[in-house]
């Protein structure tokens, strides 16, 4: 796609955009492969619950939040419990309050529209890749090209595979059979190790881990994500000992 800026810019900048885009696509590709079977499954489960393929595809386009969508489909019935589903969705997605805040310092390299779109469609996976990039290359490394490569196809594949799953029905009965379900936690573990390697925030990780496991078992619902994310974040703040001092 040639834009006005592309034509005016020197070649190096344009090739930089696509080189960054390919880098981003490579970085996100394992997570794309891991997410696709779940979108197929979501589509087929939704149809079993009485949603039409058009409806569940619309959901994947507009809500675009895997865990919230699975829970919504799980509690879906006729007549639709609108408030229960919307309320649960809000609860599952509270973590995006924290995630959006964490993105804020690193999007300076994007246009206002680029920032708006990036924040509007960040998922756990694409958010994690953007933050990882900021950590390894600094905020300037979060380039329009890199964001394009990480975000665009990953976003589009979700409604695409949802639709395929809804129309074909039951292509993937059990993503766990081939370990697809473990790609997501495995990649996230490597990301946690990467962040830990850079900052040695051992206590942050342990507090978050402990809070998540406790809350998961003690509190009904999905509070554990938000509570544990908050607990780890507060720990990071409490460990602050003044400028220039690293925390452990």
């Amino acid at each position, binding site marked *: 796609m040639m834009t006005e800026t592309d034509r005016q810019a020197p070649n190096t900048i344009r090739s930089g955009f696509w080189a960054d885009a390919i880098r981003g696509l490579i970085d996100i590709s394992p997570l794309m492969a891991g997410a696709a079977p779940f979108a197929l499954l979501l589509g087929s489960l939704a149809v079993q619950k009485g*949603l*039409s*393929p*058009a*409806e569940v595809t*619309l*959901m994947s386009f507009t*809500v*675009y*939040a895997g865990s*919230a969508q699975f829970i919504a489909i799980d509690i879906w019935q006729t*007549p639709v419990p*609108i408030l229960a589903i*919307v309320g649960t*969705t*809000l609860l599952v997605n509270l973590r*995006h*309050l*924290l*995630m*959006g*805040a*964490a993105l*804020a*310092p690193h999007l300076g390299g994007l246009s206002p529209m680029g920032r708006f779109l990036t*924040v*509007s469609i960040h998922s*756990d996976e694409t958010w*994690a890749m953007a933050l990882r990039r900021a*950590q390894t290359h600094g905020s300037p490394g979060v380039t329009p090209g890199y964001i394009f490569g990480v975000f665009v196809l990953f976003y589009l594949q979700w409604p695409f595979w949802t639709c395929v799953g809804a129309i074909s029905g039951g292509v993937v009965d059990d993503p766990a059979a*081939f*370990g697809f379900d*473990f*790609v*997501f*936690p*495995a990649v*996230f*573990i*490597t990301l946690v*190790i990467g*962040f*830990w390697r850079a900052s040695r925030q051992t206590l*942050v990780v342990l*507090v*978050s881990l402990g809070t*998540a*496991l406790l809350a*998961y078992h003690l509190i009904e619902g999905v509070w*554990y994500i*938000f509570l*544990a*994310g908050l607990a*780890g*974040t507060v720990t*990071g*703040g409490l*460990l*602050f000992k003044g*400028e220039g001092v690293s925390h452990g």
Partner: protein
Amino acid sequence: MDNLFSLQGATVITILGMATVTWLCRMTGYALARRIAITGRAKAALEAMPPAILTAIIAPMAFSEGIPEATAAAVTVFAALRLPTLVAVAAGVATVVLMRQIPF
């Protein structure tokens, strides 16, 4: 399939409600963080967010599902400490697939 393109009022309203609250969560934290000057302790907290949230999301998936998942999570942690990311992910996934063959 007759209902391929069918859109029911209550369903569409529910979906748009889900989309709205999700989008508000995505935008609100970002918008607040952009308006507040973040230094010192707040900056340290913000820097702790990525590992804290990543850990929060996967903790039950990794350590509360069962022995195969917990073992695979441990394998992934140790592999990620010394090996490239993709190798660590492959090792974790392979471990979970193999361990699930064992009846516990």
